[in-house]
């Protein structure tokens, strides 16, 4: 995998943003800890210096009251001289310097004034030579205080203290902080990269599979892997979808093959007939009529297919209304009674009042027509067909049961599909679309279509949700 590709991934870009935000928050936290720790130490140093210099000032005023101004200055110089070797608790040395208005040192352990000459009061930092190591300097923090009234005395006191330790802590702190921050960022970046790579890998696998499918290999599946994470779940969902698509494609192919198979025969016969006719000088009306009938059969198959497709598209649903199944059953039974009688098949009818369902009158009538047509076709003379309407727990059952040969249990699901026939050689008449249309109509009406054994014969039950009467609703 090339690096630029990983940089373009959204996970990586998110990682960078996250690393940035994380760095800023770590730096802020570190700075806060640093300021409060080092600041506390600085304050302590300052307080010690402040106490020392104020003590000196106090002592000067004491001496001044007793011995006058000059005596005071002399006394202060003596005190400072006596303190010059003083060290603090951690061994850090104090610096002292007492100067007159001409910056001349009067007492102390510094040989020159380290601050600007016009600085009268305030804090400064400077460095002094390290007595323990040649050429080394030690940082010092110092306070300058004028001895008041400055216009009269003209002298200033400087008290300083080595801040070697403070500087060391400061340095170490800053180093630790930078190092920690760098390490944190590095870890975050590494984690982000790992995350990006892993996500990228899954996506790459997905798109590789997709590309292969686009190229025409529908049997490809996304590798799921052993994990039970969301990637595996996504892979499984995609695979399930692909299975479904493959099934649908297989179904489509089957329908396509069946259309070809079912229409090629009649079309070839039609062509042969026309070819024969073209040889005759005066073709007979009967043979032309036969050709027409042949063409009509092909057209009828097409129309049936189109109608099923149209039903399945849901186009009829918007015209659904509350209708009574009773009159439809009566109408269609009436339509088929004569046909059944001619075949010496008894058509027995049992309906109920107020069999209200939500649906389309034409579709339900056609579905029932197809069911009755099948029943009449398959029931031998002397047999019977029961056409029955029943109410059962909030549903209406429409039953067409015949005493014909029936459908073997293993084929009952298959015969509901387009062009499916029990006899695969397709020698029996019929388009093989009748039950497919019934199923499409049933689906549109949220109805259950169940084929069972009528012992002997086939029993088709269409279970529709019952609704109230249209009058009660309005």
């Amino acid at each position: 995998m090339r690096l630029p590709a990983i940089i373009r991934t959204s996970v990586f870009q998110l990682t960078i943003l996250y690393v940035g935000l994380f760095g800023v928050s770590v730096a802020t936290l570190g700075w806060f800890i640093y300021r409060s720790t080092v600041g506390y130490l600085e304050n302590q140093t300052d307080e010690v210096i402040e106490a020392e210099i104020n003590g000196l000032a106090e002592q000067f005023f004491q001496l001044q009251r007793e011995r006058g101004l000059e005596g005071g200055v002399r006394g202060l110089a003596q005190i400072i001289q006596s303190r010059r070797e003083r060290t603090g608790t951690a061994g850090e040395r104090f610096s002292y310097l007492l100067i007159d208005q001409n910056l001349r040192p009067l007492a102390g352990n510094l040989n020159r004034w380290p601050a600007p000459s016009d600085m009268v009061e305030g804090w400064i930092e400077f460095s002094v030579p390290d007595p323990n190591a040649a050429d080394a300097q030690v940082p010092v923090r110092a306070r300058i205080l004028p001895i008041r009234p400055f216009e009269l005395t003209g002298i200033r006191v400087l008290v300083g203290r080595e801040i070697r330790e403070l500087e060391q802590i400061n340095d170490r702190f800053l180093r630790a902080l930078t190092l920690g921050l760098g390490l944190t960022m590095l870890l975050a970046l590494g984690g982000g990269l790992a995350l990006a790579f892993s996500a990228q890998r899954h996506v790459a696998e997905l798109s590789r599979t997709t590309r292969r499918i686009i190229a025409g290999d529908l049997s490809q599946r996304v590798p799921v892997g052993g994990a039970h994470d969301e990637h595996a779940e996504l892979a499984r969902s995609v695979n399930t979808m692909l299975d479904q698509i493959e099934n649908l494609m297989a179904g489509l192919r089957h329908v396509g093959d069946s259309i070809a198979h079912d229409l090629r025969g009649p079309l070839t016969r039609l062509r042969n007939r026309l070819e024969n006719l073209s040889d005759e000088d005066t073709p007979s009306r009967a043979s032309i009529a036969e050709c027409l009938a042949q063409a009509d059969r092909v057209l009828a198959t097409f129309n049936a297919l189109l109608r099923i497709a149209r039903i399945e598209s849901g186009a009829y649903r918007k015209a659904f209304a509350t209708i009574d199944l009773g009159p439809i059953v009566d109408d269609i039974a009436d339509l088929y009674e004569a046909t059944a009688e001619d075949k010496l098949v008894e058509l027995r009818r049992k309906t109920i009042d107020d069999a209200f369902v939500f649906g389309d009158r034409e579709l339900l009538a056609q579905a029932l027509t197809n069911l009755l047509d099948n029943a009449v076709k398959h029931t031998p003379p002397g047999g019977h067909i029961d056409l029955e309407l029943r109410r059962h727990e909030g549903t209406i059952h429409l039953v067409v049961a015949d005493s014909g040969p029936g459908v073997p249990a293993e084929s009952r699901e298959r015969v509901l599909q387009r062009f499916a026939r029990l006899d695969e050689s397709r020698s029996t008449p019929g388009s093989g679309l009748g039950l497919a249309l019934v199923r499409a109509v049933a689906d549109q009406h949220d109805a259950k279509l169940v084929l069972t054994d009528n012992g002997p014969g086939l029993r088709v039950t269409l279970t529709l949700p019952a609704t109230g009467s249209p009058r009660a609703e309005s």
Partner: protein
Amino acid sequence: MRVLIIEDDHEVSSYIRQGLIQAGWNVDVADNGKDGLLMATTEQYDALIVDRMLPGVEGLALIRTLRASDNETPALVLSALGEVDDRVKGLQAGGDDYLVKPFAFSELLARLEALIRRAKSAGSQHETTLSLADLEIDLLKREVHRGGRKIDLQPREFQLLEFLLRHAGQVVTRTMLLEGVWNYHFDPQTNVIDVHISRLRGKIDKGFDKPLLHTVRGAGYRLST
């Protein structure tokens, strides 16, 4: 008979045109809605054949415009959409009948003749008897006589005969019968209608010299002398 075909698909319009000319009709063709509307309003036709999907003015809008200007020329709507809700729309717009592509020419011709006849006899809709040769039915008493002999018919057979008599001399297709007698609009596809016809034939023709109910191969039936 003079008919105007308004259809943009030349293959369809020439197919209809040739068939109608062979049947002895006068045929005009318009291949868009605008021309069609102009011709339909300026010329006198016995019937219009109007496609739904038209460039210019849409088929149903065209019929609605004609009806709004009191032009009552019967119109047969052709449609490739061809389903129940479309049929309802077509009839609501003022179309008199509705035919779905693809259709057999015989079906179109039968429906066209029925349309024109219905339009011409619009004034005499309320007759109480219908007759053809020696066959006579009384619509009020629901009785049928042929050659002075009373024939007993089932109610549905009576309806069937009434429909055929109202279209006497014309070809009536199976789909037209399912529509006119049973009031369902799908293609029965099987011989259910034939069985009803043969029963009716057995009652009104059996025992008489001249048969009245004829089968027209590839198209349907015709009641004529």
